[in-house]
């Protein structure tokens, strides 16, 4: 074979990207030429930028805007005008904090549920009822009781990141091979040492899968939560740009949300590979 699969897939990816950008570019231009593509009310709102162009910005505009954001991501010009880097950092901070607290609760609790059939049976109905609740449904309750939008959004992240980690930890702990536990028993290993040296490494791949699902959901939810709560964060940025009718900025933000989400997933996948073992 001439080129490796990797090289060929890379070429295909680049070609697809170019085709996509070209279609986007020409679709937006012709939309502008034929005229009536734009809602007149929206055109009025857009003012200057609306003249002679489509409602949707073309790739060149988005590229220019992207460059503007990349070259100065951390400027701070008042509460409604912060660099996209600052906004992303706010969101990332909330996600990581909520996720961390969720992990601190979910992993020990998952151990308990996984190791004790009594707790498993007792807690299962609660988990089953609480798990399908949309994390955003907690938002009003959180705002009302906590009375702090910052803490409330972290709480929402906590609650959405909790369940996958809890369920996976419990499952991973409960399905540790009996023979490994028997080895540990015949060696008279204490329960703490067994938990840390046998059960934790045995269940680690399953726990990591739960963490990966959790961080994905948390990153999905933070955008919606920040749109509701406002103030700072990438979700608020998107909402604010919508109010400014800056579709270009929204497209840039969408791109960044995707990239950061991918990055979070890659990091956890990498950690997952570190703790993986082959039987």
């Amino acid at each position: 074979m001439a080129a490796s699969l990797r090289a060929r897939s890379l070429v295909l990816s680049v070609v697809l990207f170019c085709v996509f950008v070209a279609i986007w570019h020409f679709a937006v231009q012709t939309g502008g030429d034929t005229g009536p593509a734009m809602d007149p009310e929206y055109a009025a709102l857009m003012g200057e930028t609306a003249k002679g162009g489509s409602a949707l910005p073309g790739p060149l505009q988005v590229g220019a805007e992207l460059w503007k954001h990349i070259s100065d991501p951390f400027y701070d010009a008042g509460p409604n005008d912060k660099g996209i880097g600052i906004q992303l950092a706010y969101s990332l901070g909330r996600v990581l904090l909520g996720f961390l607290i969720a992990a601190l609760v979910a992993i020990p609790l998952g151990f308990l549920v996984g190791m004790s059939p009594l707790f498993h049976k007792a807690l299962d109905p609660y988990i089953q009822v609480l798990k399908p609740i949309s994390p955003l449904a907690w938002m009003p309750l959180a705002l009302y009781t906590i009375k702090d939008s910052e803490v409330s959004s972290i709480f929402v992240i906590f609650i959405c990141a909790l369940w996958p980690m809890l369920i996976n930890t419990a499952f991973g702990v409960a399905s540790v091979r009996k023979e490994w536990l028997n080895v540990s028993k015949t060696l008279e290993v204490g329960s703490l040492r067994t938990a840390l040296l046998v059960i934790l490494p045995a269940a680690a791949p399953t726990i990591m899968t739960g963490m990966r699902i959790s961080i994905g959901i948390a990153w999905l939810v933070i955008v919606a939560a920040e749109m509701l709560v406002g103030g700072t964060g990438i979700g608020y940025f998107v909402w604010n740009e919508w109010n400014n009718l800056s579709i270009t900025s929204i497209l840039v933000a969408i791109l960044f949300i995707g990239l950061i989400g991918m990055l979070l997933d890659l990091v956890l996948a990498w950690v997952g590979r570190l703790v993986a073992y082959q039987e």
Partner: protein
Amino acid sequence: MSSKKPLISIEGLTRSFASQDKGEDAFAVFEDVWFHVNESEFVCLIGHSGCGKTTLLNILAGLDTASEGAVIVGGIAVEGPSLDRAVIFQSHALMPWMSVMGNIAFAVKSRWPEWNKDRIREHCQKYIDLVHLTGSENKKPSQLSGGMKQRVGIARALAIQPKILLMDEPFSALDALTRGSLQDETLSICQTTRQTSFMITHDIDEAILLSDKIVLMTNGPEAKVCEIVENTLPRERTRNDMHHHANYYPMRNHLLDFLVNRSRQFREELASADYDPRHPPVVAPTAENASTDPAVFEKPPLVKTINA
């Protein structure tokens, strides 16, 4: 040879499980089992699949509890697992995330928590060398062959210097060649250290090679100790020359006859003879008594089994 002091004494052991069918009584896997293992003795247990051998070994190890009766080790009833009784599991049971060294060190550290790293390493290395795994210290179990994994399991069990070694068909998953060399190694280790050992096996030749005494268990449910066979071959035997000894075929035929016929028909045998479960009959098949024992040679066993 072995001093005649019973180290393990199994007294009236019964293990029942609740029946799957609702309303039915619990069924006993084995019932009223009595035998003992002397110090420095190698005892094998032979029986058909499902007669409760693993269950019995788990009770000896302290991983399971008997429904009735007791296991006495050194004068004290077994109440749970102990570092004095090391187990070599049928499926090696190595932790796949630990290296060879790590697996053995885990056991050694449990045995001597006060030891420092260097001492633990040195001790582990000794046992890794003993089972001929030098050079594979840092490999993970998934990088080892089946025989090598089983060797790690043996090293892990021996490294804690247990009073008693319990083995559950340790070589049954291996090919004949690997099995043979591991049997040789086990034989030489157990002979030099005079390790008290109890081993479950399906393999008659393995039992003849390794054991001083073979316990025969009938088919379950309600399995019993049918008899105890003294190994009449001299202690200095090897896998290559033991079949030249005059007592080899009498031993082998006796065990084969048990597995093929008597393990099933024992109930009838029991009704006729004056069988006392506390003192199961002890037999010592030799060239002299075999020729006069019709039980061994007269029955054409294989044909009968197939038709039955």
